[in-house]
């Protein structure tokens, strides 16, 4: 490996470092990973290019504007979303930042925000200084130099601020012990706002340093594949130490460059990162677990929706109504692809409905893992992909066999990823699954030992599944199975063990439950169901390749479960209908996308802490209560109507 590629690798490492530092800053203050960090940086870089390239604003003026704007945006996010959710489970905050990321992404795609593409390509992304040095066989440009200068400078400045100034110390104090900080006169709300303002500025700086590195400027540059590298570095630093994160990021950058220099295979670099993350978990696992246990707030989940009160459930009228309701629902979903409204009976919409059902299965599988076992998967869609590619390998087998094989393959993958991470309490599965999501698209799904054809597979549907409707019914059947499996898991000892391990790992262990095995079992079951969902994608799509299972969709799937209501099967299905069913019916216009993926999600998180499932369950309770009351001949509650006659008399007196 040449010195030149080593230098370039180190510079790439620096970009991961600055991203990692932004993530650590928020994690230290709020105890969750901010998925909106990269998107804010991307939006800032788009706006910056717009200002300089299209509107001719001088570089330094635009720089100040964008940094100030990003700081303000960070503060606004804290005040309007993060602070309001400060008492919510951390997973809800993670999901909220994913929704914010989608919103920022939406903004950066707006025509009025996007810079003129042709001019941008011609002039290149604006740079602070324009140089071109030949060093050790590689060309270093102003972009590289900016990174080499500004990243260490920014890191040092941030570290000095946190260590030496009164507000910096206040921020650290508030992060370590919020109550004691408040009792020392520090407004924890204000320190949190300051941190988010700083993080916003840092995100913008990161975006501006990143953007000129890429030849073709893409907004997705700071998506999951970069994020996982930064997270890997942050993880090694136990989400606290800035210098360690800095060093680890450099190691990742250099290792990646070395592998790339040897093999020229971009996918292999993803594999390196995946192995790095897994290695970090194996080597530093115990320490990491301890550091998280000290911050007991790291994991925590909302309550499941209550079942119907037994005295109501016992009522004959309620039982009858429930029967009618379930039958009605069954008839409706079966009739759905035949209805001539909203184009439901067209093959395109039927296909989208099948996909919606498949996402509902993924939602159910995530409910088991995230809602009950308390583990977060950020790579669940890759498990779906494993299922789909398995279908392609066993194309000629009968459909039920293929479904089982797809499930087993995904369950196997889940166990392999899960073993290093699930030994440890905390949210480490999130990072290793994110890494898996990236390596799946970048490498696994492009290996001939796994997929038949590197550039993509084409599937002939078996005669049973000739039409879209047939695929829809397959999806429906699998969803019904998934629901039955999930309900059984929850009702048996396995489900109770999951909840016990989730809520109190130590107590569960002292009761003789193996936390590691319980988590692993839940991930395996969850993976199996996700794999079966993969069959629907495979048969529905027929032709697909690695890029059809991108890591970003895994984040969307998590959003979906959170919107529905974590821990509720009904919620998982409702979430799928909300996020995928609505676009299937109403198209994917900007408005619909905005509503179903970002703003709508935020509204649900902020105003309906129990998710859509809580709305459904309170409606159910109200109806049941009314039915039961009528059955027992009790008087209806007084109607709240205005006293019309008396109002009139008072007016005319």
């Amino acid at each position: 490996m040449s010195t030149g590629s080593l230098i370039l690798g180190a510079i790439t490492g620096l970009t991961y470092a600055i991203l990692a530092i932004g993530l650590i800053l928020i994690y230290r203050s709020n105890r969750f990973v901010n998925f909106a960090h990269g998107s804010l940086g991307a939006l800032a870089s788009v706006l910056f290019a717009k200002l300089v390239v299209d509107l001719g604003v001088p570089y330094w003026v635009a720089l100040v504007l964008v940094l100030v704007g990003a700081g303000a945006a960070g503060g606004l996010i804290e005040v309007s979303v993060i602070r309001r959710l400060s008492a919510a489970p951390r997973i809800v905050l993670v999901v909220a930042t994913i929704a914010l990321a989608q919103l920022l992404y939406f903004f950066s795609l707006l025509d009025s925000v996007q810079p003129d593409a042709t001019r941008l390509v011609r002039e290149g992304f604006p740079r602070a200084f324009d140089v071109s040095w030949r060093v050790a066989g590689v060309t270093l440009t102003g972009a590289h130099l900016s990174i080499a200068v500004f990243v260490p400078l920014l890191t040092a400045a941030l570290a000095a601020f946190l260590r030496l100034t009164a507000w910096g110390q206040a921020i650290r104090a508030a992060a370590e012990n919020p109550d004691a900080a408040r009792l020392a006169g520090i407004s924890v709300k204000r320190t949190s706002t300051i941190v988010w303002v700083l993080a916003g500025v840092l995100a913008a700086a990161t975006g501006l340093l990143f953007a000129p590195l890429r030849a073709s400027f893409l907004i997705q540059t700071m998506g999951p594949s970069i994020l996982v590298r930064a997270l890997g570095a942050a993880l090694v630093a136990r989400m606290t130490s800035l210098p360690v994160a800095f060093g680890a990021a450099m190691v990742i950058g250099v290792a990646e460059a070395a592998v790339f220099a040897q093999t020229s295979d971009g996918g292999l670099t993803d594999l390196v990162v995946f192995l790095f993350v897994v290695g970090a978990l194996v080597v530093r696992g115990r320490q990491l677990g301890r550091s998280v246990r000290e911050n007991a707030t790291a994991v925590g989940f909302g309550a499941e929706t209550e079942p119907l009160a037994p005295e109501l459930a016992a009522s004959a009228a309620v039982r009858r109504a429930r029967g009618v309701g379930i039958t009605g629902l069954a008839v409706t979903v079966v009739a759905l692809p035949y209805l001539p409204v909203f184009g439901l009976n067209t093959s395109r919409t039927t296909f989208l409905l099948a996909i919606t059902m498949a996402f509902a299965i993924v939602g159910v599988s995530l409910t088991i893992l995230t809602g009950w076992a308390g583990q977060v998967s950020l790579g669940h869609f890759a498990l779906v992909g494993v299922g789909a590619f398995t279908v392609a390998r066993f194309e000629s087998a009968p459909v039920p066999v293929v479904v089982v094989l797809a499930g087993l393959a995904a369950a196997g993958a889940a166990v392999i990823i899960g073993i290093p991470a699930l030994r440890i309490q905390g949210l480490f599965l999130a990072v290793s699954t994110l890494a898996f999501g990236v390596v799946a698209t970048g490498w696994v799904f492009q290996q001939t030992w796994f997929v038949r054809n590197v550039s993509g597979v084409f599937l002939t549907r078996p005669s049973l599944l000739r039409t879209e409707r047939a695929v829809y019914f397959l999806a429906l059947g699998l969803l019904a199975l998934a629901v039955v499996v999930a309900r059984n898991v929850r009702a048996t000892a396995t489900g109770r063990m999951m909840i016990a391990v989730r809520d109190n790992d130590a107590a569960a262990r002292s009761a003789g439950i193996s936390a590691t095995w319980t988590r692993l079992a839940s991930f395996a079951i969850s993976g199996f169901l996700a794999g079966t969902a993969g069959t629907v994608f495979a048969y529905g799509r027929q032709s697909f390749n690695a890029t059809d299972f991108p890591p970003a969709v895994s984040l969307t799937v998590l959003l979906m479960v959170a919107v529905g209501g974590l821990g509720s099967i009904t919620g998982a299905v409702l979430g799928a209908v909300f996020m995928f069913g609505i676009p299937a019916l109403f198209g994917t216009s900007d408005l619909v996308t905005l509503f179903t993926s970002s703003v709508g999600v935020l509204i649900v998180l902020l105003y309906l802490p129990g998710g859509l499932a809580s709305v459904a369950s309170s409606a159910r309770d109200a109806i049941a209560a009314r039915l039961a009351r009528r059955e027992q001949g009790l008087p209806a509650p007084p109607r709240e109507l205005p006293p019309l006659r008396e109002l009139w008399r008072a007016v005319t007196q």
Partner: protein
Amino acid sequence: MTDEPRSLAAGIIAAEPIETTVDEHGVITTDLAIGESVPLRETLRRHGALPLALLTILNVVDELDRVAIVTLGPEIQRSFDLSDAALGAVAGLGGLLTVAASVPLAVLADRRRRIPLVTASALLWAAFTGLTGAARNVVMLVIARLLSGLGKGAIEPVHTSLLADWYPVESRGRVLAVHRAANPIGAVIGPLLAGGIGALFGWRWAFVAAVPLTVIPALAALALREPRRGQHEEAASGTDTTVAEVELPKVPIGSAVARLLDIQSLRFMYMGIGVLGFAVVGAPVIISLYLEEVLGLGQFGRGAFFAVGAVGPLIGLPLGGMVSDRLFRRDPGWPLHLVGLAIPLWAVLLVVSLYLPGVVLVTIGWVVAGAVLGVATPAFLQLVSVTSPPAFRALSFSMFGLFLYVFGGFFGPIIMGSASDAWGPRTALSLLVAPGLLAGVLLVRGAKHVAGDIQMVIDDLRQASTARARRREGGNLVELRGIDFSYGPTQVLFGVDLDIPEGEIVALLGTNGAGKSTVLRVLTGLEHPRRGQVRFRGEDITYLEAEQILGLGIAQMPGGKAVFPGMTVEENLRVGAFTYRDDKRRVETDLAEVYERFPRLGERRRQLAATLSGGEQQMLALAKAFLTQPTLLCIDELSLGLAPSVTADLLAIVRELHERGTTIVVVEQSVNVALALATTAVFMEKGQVRYSGPAEDLRDRSDLLRSVFLQGATAS
């Protein structure tokens, strides 16, 4: 955290009205003694007509400016070469800022004198309205509109809250109706005035002419006297007015909002208005479309339609004012019934009028619908004014704007727009009936809470007054009264009363889980109770944040977890001195004093706090509390897990602090430690106070102490 997200919807489902008394005629009564019906003329004679007149004039001028930009739109477009969309954006920008600015302006209005605020904001908008006329390019135009919009943000919260404090409860409906009538007046005369001046002298002069019309009343307003907040509520409930002993920091906006959202009737009104926003914000645009596409009206015709339409509210508002005052006297919840009836009726009338043949009939329908909405407006404002605590009234008014425009306003036009594209404007407008009905139901459901909420406002005023009186007669430094507190669904404190006399050491004893530490957390503002008050020197500090309460001189040393483990001893102390961080010299001398007094800390100043022993950590915690020089020091579990000799050292320090004049509350598991120190003791069990009195007498209460002794035996 204190302001956890409260689900509006969830709260409404569970809401039960606060109990109220019903008299022999079945009429709900509150302690608000509302006198005989007084004619408006008489009210104005007694309380002065000038405030109402000036604020109304300012409101008219504001409306004129808003109308002018629409009326003179084509000329402005020509001057700056603007597209229709750009003009719409310019007009909309100011409106957006008006709503956005109303909340911070309301916070100011709740904290400072409001009359200067009225004048300053009016002058701001006058200056930039004038500048609109003088704008040379689009940038100037946009800036002028933005800042003029900013100034107008004061009208909703500041004017309305001022009027509520100027005029008594029984006339408020009519007074607010007069002020609100400025909008339709402006809408009727605006097009004529602006169009006239524009035609004669050019559009720029129309804006310049608005400047003196604003400046004169704005300056005249300076002659008005600032009314005292809630004075009419106090007078009507026979509450004494007394002056506070300490100046309290203001409740932060987050807590204030949370407090307002806890008021049931307001919650229903906010929800109702939020739902209504979907209808009212998007409607005018679609109606314009309807007028153009279906009735074939040109720009002039549409302008005339809206100008004539303003006659509706002009008739409705005064009527509504009178009716509202009348209904309020009969039953305070009834005006809300009126609003709840009027809003669906408005929606239905509006939709019906769209199906009438001919422009004339449609206009008449629009006028009638407008009149109905006009009738509802004063009743609504009146109820907001009486159910919001006087200290947060401006904020409460500004939140209505926010609910109206932010929720419905954002999605309403988008939804209406897509519906109009798909099915045409008339069908889209017919959808308005749904939010109209829903808003009506919500408002009617809120009506039963009104009386109880008014009673709560009065009770608060009364309690403040009596607490001050008690304090003047030598009362306690701190008093807790009727504190209920829950962690989530688990209630841990049940009606706790606690007195802390000045200069004493009070021991708070009890078994594990009795709620002692929670009492301290509530007292120092780390938690806010669901019910009850915390008073310091007679003033209510219940909803202040911990960091503000520290500023009053109340410090707490939290048990067992008082240090920042990942920071050095010196950094810990510097954080302890955070409140006076800018006084560098004092920080250094204080640190030197701490090191002198606690030499062990001096030796370990560079060590991480996590590496200290338990006793040293407690010492560090005590030193941090010592730095803030508190009037009242609350100590949670001083001796927990410490060797007796270490405890003795710490106790000596506590005694010394007490001798210097600090009042002290200690929470202790160890009865011996507590009783060795304290003069007064309070014993708690299961979230309730079981004993309160001299410490000596508690020794003889073996019935109470047994549980603690047993507890202590196992713990030590």
